[in-house]
């Protein structure tokens, strides 16, 4: 990994990372990829998010859906863990709560494949300070 020797280095790296879009390991055309984020903090893992992570990674692969699955920290909805946020290209992110394997399957089949919203989505109730 190249060292960052000055502010210009950092900014260059940032721009590169941004244009690659921000996430995951697939590099390149992230803008057209479905992005799946899974909350993986202590509380989420305790409610089974690791299993959901594995399930989603396997199933998205099996069903030939081009998506990146990444782990994040606590989204704050501890009452509804495990939580999963899905961003379909061109749309606002949607948060799903109380995700189990059945729900994860529905998320793939209904929401990711067909854009149909499911019951129980969690409205975002905070303001972001950036963007």
């Amino acid at each position, binding site marked *: *990994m190249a*060292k*960052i*020797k*000055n*502010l210009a280095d*950092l*900014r260059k*790296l*940032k721009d590169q*990372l*941004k244009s690659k879009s*921000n*996430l*995951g390991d697939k590099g390149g055309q992230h803008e057209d990829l479905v992005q799946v*984020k899974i*909350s993986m*903090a*202590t*509380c989420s*893992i305790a409610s089974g998010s690791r299993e959901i992570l594995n399930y989603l990674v396997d199933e998205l692969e099996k069903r030939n859906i081009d998506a990146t699955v*990444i*782990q*994040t*920290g*606590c*989204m*704050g*909805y*501890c*009452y*509804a863990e495990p939580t999963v*946020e899905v961003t379909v290209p061109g749309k606002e992110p949607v948060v799903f*709560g109380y995700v189990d394997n059945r729900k994860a399957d529905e998320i793939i089949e*209904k929401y990711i494949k*067909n*854009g*149909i*919203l*499911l*019951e*129980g*989505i*969690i*409205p*975002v*109730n*905070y*303001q*972001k*300070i*950036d963007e």
Partner: protein
Amino acid sequence: MSEYKIYLLVCGGTTCKSQAGHALAENLKTEVKNQGLSDVAQVVITGCFGFCEKGPIVKVLPDNTFYTKVKPEDAREIVEEHVVRGKKVQRLLYKDPKTDKIITDPEGMKVYKKQVRIALRNCGAINPESIDEYIARQGYEALGRVLTEMDPQQTIDIIKKSGLRGRGGGGFPTGMKWELTAASKADQKYVVCNADEGDPGAFMDRSVLEGDPHSVIEGMVVCGYCTGATQGLVYIRAEYPLAIERLKTGIKQAREYGLLGKNIFGTEFSFDIELKYGAGAFVCGEETALIHSMEGKRGEPTMKPPFPSVEGYLGKPTTVNNVETFANISSIILKGHEWFSSIGTEKSKGTKVFALAGKVNNVGLVEVPMGITLREVIFEIGGGIKGGKKFKAVQTGGPSGGCLTEQHLDIPIDYDNLIAAGSMMGSGGMVVMDEDDCMVDMAKFFLEFTVDESCGKCTPCRIGNKRLFELLEKITKGNGNREDIERLVNLGNVIKDTSLCGLGQSSPNPVLAMIRNFPQEYDAHVVDKKCPSGVCKALMVYEIVAENCVGCTACARACPVGAITGERKEIHTIDKSLCIKCGACMDRCKFNAVIVN
């Protein structure tokens, strides 16, 4: 299956549901079906919007229209007007309470988004194990600017002007603390991040470290530059394995990029961070005890002054700050102190993260601007009390704080107001209690914790708290009297006045606040020997109502101690001297003949 054109999102949060939100959703579904729109529009029940006061809520997508206080009868109008004709139903739109103006644009609907995320800005948004994602969101930009474009004093001035105060509980102005360390002359100085988080029910710091470790690392390096320290230490409890892992990964990545180590950003400044593990003692969160613990000594507090800023770790000037305090730093530098100080109240700026727990629907991690009311946090963001029960009190500041009641719900939350109300901000634990919680029992719970956690160095705290606990136990057993309450108050005040550290000085706060706010409840325990909330077992009396008893003998067979006697088909009785108040008889009786007083 194909995509719908219009979505009607109906809030399925507990509060909305109880206000006929369920019937509303059903009506909307029926209307959509009856009007032959099943292929065009879909009704979706969602989680809580955190805006319960104006519920039930209906949000229409994709145009983001927000309808408030919608009644089941309004379903037809929404479907006919909005879905069919594409016209908004004016009377149901949200009106700004101050200007009475109708708000239609989604931007204006920010009002219902009561949370503002600064410390949690990346939590749940990025992969905490990827420094690249942090950098892509302007990570380390603040550090770069500080190191290459600003001198330490300029940076300290920004932090001072921002009004940031320590988030670990005390609320000491952060900029001033840094200035003190900067002014101390020494060959070596340290930055310490306090990640001990011992307050029961609190998990803010853990979440920040697990969700966004780089924000804390960046804040620490900035602090090092400002104060002249070259070594950082994170004191973290060993019970936080995931936070430790993520922090270690973060430190490793930062070193690889040269953001930790020698000559950061090509400057003369060098800084590195090391982890120190705590065994999870509450008192080790106190800064002097924490420093002793890091030095390998017993985790006992010592007198201040000298303050750590003058004489801290290994006798050198040390800045101790909380995790959340550090997590705020880079945003302040990037967005400016004017921006930060525009959020909050006069003397408390920015936001505070709270771990909302207890008898509230939406248990979770929330970050709210200072000055928000408890009512908004508990009844809006928190979605109200579980099971539709009645709110009784909320404990802030954990075992050092006090309970706040109905009358405090509308005061703006900040450091000073909470102290004036007899509690404190603390590190951010917020435990909500309902009508089923007994205030004597609660006080006992917190004292049991402090008795366990007292380091034992000074007598008032070591012995005094134990006596307080025993008095409370006496009361919950039904052996208390009025003088005992007086004793609690007197002894509590003595402990506060004579203890060495913050633990002892604040340990009587919960019981004192509960006596102050719920005098009737304490009276009921000592005078009437009754526990109004039905928690204190010793004060409960199980009895059989003669009129209802059919003599089926089910209760007698259920009683594990043989306290119930009576012949078949005859009225049974409970021998109170034998009864252990387990309630087995009551559970078993099919005729409601067993009652409890």
